[in-house]
């Protein structure tokens, strides 16, 4: 069934998405997020110079689903590999696609230092509060009380803390230029996610620094919910622990010096590059954190 030339296309698979059927469970948001990334790449017309870095998690086979050059790297290390790639060929557009376990646990140091140094790639994180691929173990982003394979009595914050907030932590790093958290589920939230991804890739194209979008999504299978229930859980519960919003949007700046003396006049006698202006650094929350963002 091909689309005839007489028709106006309202919606179709983006070119950067390969036609393969994914291995994702029914209703899993990874598929939606893949499509959004592909749409943004198409919109920016950068497919021919984009390289993706696949991480280890359910999205490990992302390389089969995008029609782009791809490399698959060790668990958690996608930001390091992306750094190597981008430093080697700054003309490429580079993005990582990672899970919460991948980025918020084993890959913590790599993502933070990418943000500190202002590496010019875009990190996309699918946060489903669980290790999906290995069968549903706790992640650092698991919600308090959530029962998983390794928190059989529910995550107890008194023992193992509250969820790790990746977007906020990265937004606070000096080399970050765009950091946002969005969610999937309904049409409006998906459209907002697309917009955030577009801004993140644009930030990379501008060459100013590190960009990242954390996307809250479901894992119906390991949560033991129907796809629809799982989406509702994202909208109702996840956002209470992970506020949606843009946490950084502006040129890379050293937060400390900025606070101390307004960002000007620093330098310790060495080759300090021209001081760049102090961008907006406070979270500009889009929604109220109550699931309506």
């Amino acid at each position, binding site marked *: 069934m091909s689309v005839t030339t007489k028709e106006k296309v309202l919606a179709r698979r983006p070119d950067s998405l390969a036609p393969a059927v994914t291995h994702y469970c029914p209703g899993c948001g990874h598929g939606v997020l893949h499509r959004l990334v592909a749409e943004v790449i198409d919109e920016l017309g950068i*497919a021919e110079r984009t390289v993706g870095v*696949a991480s280890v998690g359910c999205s490990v086979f992302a390389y089969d689903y995008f029609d782009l050059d791809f490399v*698959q*790297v*060790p668990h958690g290390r996608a930001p*390091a*590999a992306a750094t190597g790639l981008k430093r080697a060929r700054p003309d490429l557009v580079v993005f990582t696609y990672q899970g919460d376990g991948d980025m918020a646990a084993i890959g913590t140091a*790599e993502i933070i230092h990418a943000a500190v140094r202002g590496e010019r790639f875009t990190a996309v994180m699918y946060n489903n509060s669980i290790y999906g691929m290995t069968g549903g173990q706790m992640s650092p982003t698991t919600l308090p009380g959530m029962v998983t394979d390794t928190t059989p009595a529910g995550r107890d914050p008194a023992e193992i803390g509250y969820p790790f907030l990746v977007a906020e932590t990265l937004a606070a790093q000096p080399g970050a230029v765009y950091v946002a958290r969005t969610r999937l589920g309904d049409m409006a939230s998906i459209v907002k996610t697309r917009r955030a991804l577009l801004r993140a890739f644009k930030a990379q194209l501008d060459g100013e620094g590190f960009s990242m979008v954390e996307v809250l999504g479901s894992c119906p299978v390991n949560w033991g919910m129907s796809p629809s229930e799982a989406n509702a859980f994202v909208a109702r519960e996840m956002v209470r622990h992970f506020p949606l919003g843009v946490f950084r949007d502006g040129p890379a700046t050293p937060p400390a010096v900025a606070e101390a003396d307004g960002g000007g006049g620093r330098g310790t006698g060495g080759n300090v590059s021209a001081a760049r202006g102090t961008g907006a650094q406070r979270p500009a929350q889009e929604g109220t954190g109550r699931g309506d963002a």
Partner: protein
Amino acid sequence: MAIAATQAEPATEALLYKGNEALGEAAVRAGCRFFFGYPITPQSELPAYMARRLPEVGGVYLQAESEVAAINMVLGASAAGVRVMTSSSGPGFSLKQEGISYLVGCELPAVLVNIMRGGPGLGNILPSQADYFQATKGGGHGDYRLIVLAPAGVQELADLTGLAFDLADVYRNPVIVLGDGLLGQMMEPVRFPALRPAPDPPDWALTGARGRPRRLITSIHLAAEALEAHNQRLQAKFARMAERETRWEAVETEGARLVVVAYGTASRIARAAVELAREEGLPVGLLRPITLWPFPAKPLAELAGGDAARFLAVELSAGQMVEDVRLAVAGRAPVEFYGRMGGAVPTPREILEVIRRQLGGDGR
């Protein structure tokens, strides 16, 4: 692949270089433009050299946040098709093992330097050869092999570094340059080949899928048949390496009754001991493996089948390479071991004593 180039280009005048710095210069001349590392003694002169030198040739030195990050930056850069290097010592090299296994699985070239120090644990920063097993048998998971080059002097360190890049590219497999604190810190004259430009990205590199089908680099093969086939391909490649890339130096082994086997720094001292022994008229030779993997088993086996009545492996370790000597000799002659550990370095006379004891027949 221009293997010959490294050797054939007109050499510049001899310069006095520290091993670590010669390694860096040789890498740059071989077209390496990217270095990702994390400081550790006794290899720190290498990253410092690269931090100064690479910007001069349009390259990038980046200090990673850890050795784990460094090896994966190497992976990323290699996937982009550039010549890239990382370097560390014992503890840091251990941290790179997962990444090394991935490089092999993904068939990505890279040059990995380990300037060994005393272990286990933090140990100390003195010369050691106790990471032989890790380098040659695979410190990471899965079946894999790397070419391991073990230079014994600064000139050879420079030469083999150039070779390492070429071999890595030819076989699409990482290559280890294995030295120790002594080699890294010592100065000797060295002649470098002319500067080679960074090569063009190879036809498998990720450069963006402009005008061609997309490319994929991965180590994943979910089905047993697929992963077995992948492993068979890799094993065939390792077999080719073993056939073509075994390197060693034989010093007065002809007619020798006792053959000392030693590599790298230990071979320098062993060579002095062999010279002393020869001066005394003792029939002693030295076989120096230059590639630790592939190990020069054949020349050893031939010596064992010929005049050599016994072998003496000398290492700065509790005895690691000696296993490969025993495998090569396969029971045809006794293989003895002499080693020092923890940064202790034997004197030539100390080894001479052992040689005398061996030849005296006490050990038989």
